[in-house]
């Protein structure tokens, strides 16, 4: 197998078998979800409403700390495919966004229209978890960014309904516009009822990660 064929195989496998770091970006019909993420690149919040079991619409606000740029966008997400198993669930989500990016730095370049597209995929059992997501962001004069992130997770025990669920995870992300393009973040995920909390530390870029999701 050639290296390029292996790359394509790994990429395809990742797309087929992965879960979003955003932890289920579409909820049940009529459900609201609040997501907050903070990682080496940005701090972001997304509030979305699921108009059906496979479509959600939300508002996203994001601060790209390195460039000091903020992004506010309307973000629809489609659950394109879900596989239902007795012991697993797998999903493919497609997302996009349209809004405004604003340079908050002293030498501000002003604002510009921003848009993004993304794909999020996952495969999950009670004890194993694999995920991949990618986003391509265009912000005109404020720069374009791409991001890829893959995760592998393992639960040391299987918690029942309403109990505390704990996951040990490892995330590998790739951001072309960073000095350290590819980094590794070990993290812990705690999950109980409608709330999910993640805490990790990017060992390559020496940056903390905190994510929170609440479903209501």
């Amino acid at each position: 197998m050639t290296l390029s064929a292996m790359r394509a195989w790994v990429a395809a496998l990742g797309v087929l078998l992965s879960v979003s770091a955003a932890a289920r970006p579409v909820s049940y019909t009529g459900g609201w979800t609040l997501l907050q993420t903070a990682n080496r690149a940005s701090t972001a919040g997304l509030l979305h409403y699921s108009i059906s079991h496979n479509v959600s619409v939300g508002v996203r606000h994001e601060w790209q700390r390195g460039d000091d740029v903020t992004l506010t966008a309307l973000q629809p997400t489609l659950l394109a495919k879900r596989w239902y198993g007795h012991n697993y669930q797998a999903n493919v989500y497609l997302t996009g966004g349209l809004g405004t990016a604003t340079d908050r730095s002293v030498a501000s370049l002003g604002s510009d229209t921003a848009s993004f597209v993304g794909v999020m995929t996952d495969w999950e059992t009670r004890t194993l978890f694999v995920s991949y997501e990618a986003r391509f962001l265009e912000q005109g004069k404020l720069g374009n960014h791409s991001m890829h992130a893959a995760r592998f997770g393992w639960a040391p025990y299987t918690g029942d309904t309403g109990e505390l669920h704990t996951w040990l995870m490892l995330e590998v992300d790739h951001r072309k516009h960073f000095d350290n393009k590819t980094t590794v973040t070990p993290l812990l995920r705690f999950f109980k009822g409608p709330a999910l909390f993640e805490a990790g530390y990017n060992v390559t870029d020496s940056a903390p990660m905190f994510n929170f999701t609440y479903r209501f």
Partner: protein
Amino acid sequence: MKKILLILAVTLTSLPVLANDNHRVMDHHAQHEKNQGEMNHDEMNHGEMNHGEMNHGPEHSHGSHEHPTENAKEDVMTMSAPAITTTDDITAALANGGAPVVVDVLGVVCDFCAVAMNKIFGKREEVSALYVDLDKKTLSLVVNKGASLSDEDIENLAKKAGYRIAAIRRDAEALGG
């Protein structure tokens, strides 16, 4: 990066990925129904079944064949249809004359799944108590006395929650009888 991706790929290939086990529950139900009629023991895998809780039908005799796991651990059910999960709410609702329903749900792997099912089914007036059991992968319902919730209703509600159902059991079967 290449090394990391390679390690990830090797790890993934070792997983029991995307095995199509959607039919496991249904298969057992089909087998269970078969047991209630005329049994063909040659076609059955006794090693995976707990016969203590199965209805073998009036013609069935246990004396004529071996059960590898029988008497080893009677309380372990690996392939049997789970009964209703009893909580305080469910016990009270049953005591008030409610009808038990057990739904085998596909794709239920985390608490978000349970939250979704609770929200969707909990809004229905017909439902007096419910519980999502992640271990059994079931939704246990008690339907109010005099009310009804059809299989089609349950299927549609599960779909609104984002899930699919594999089987529905009611009344004595839901109670494990």
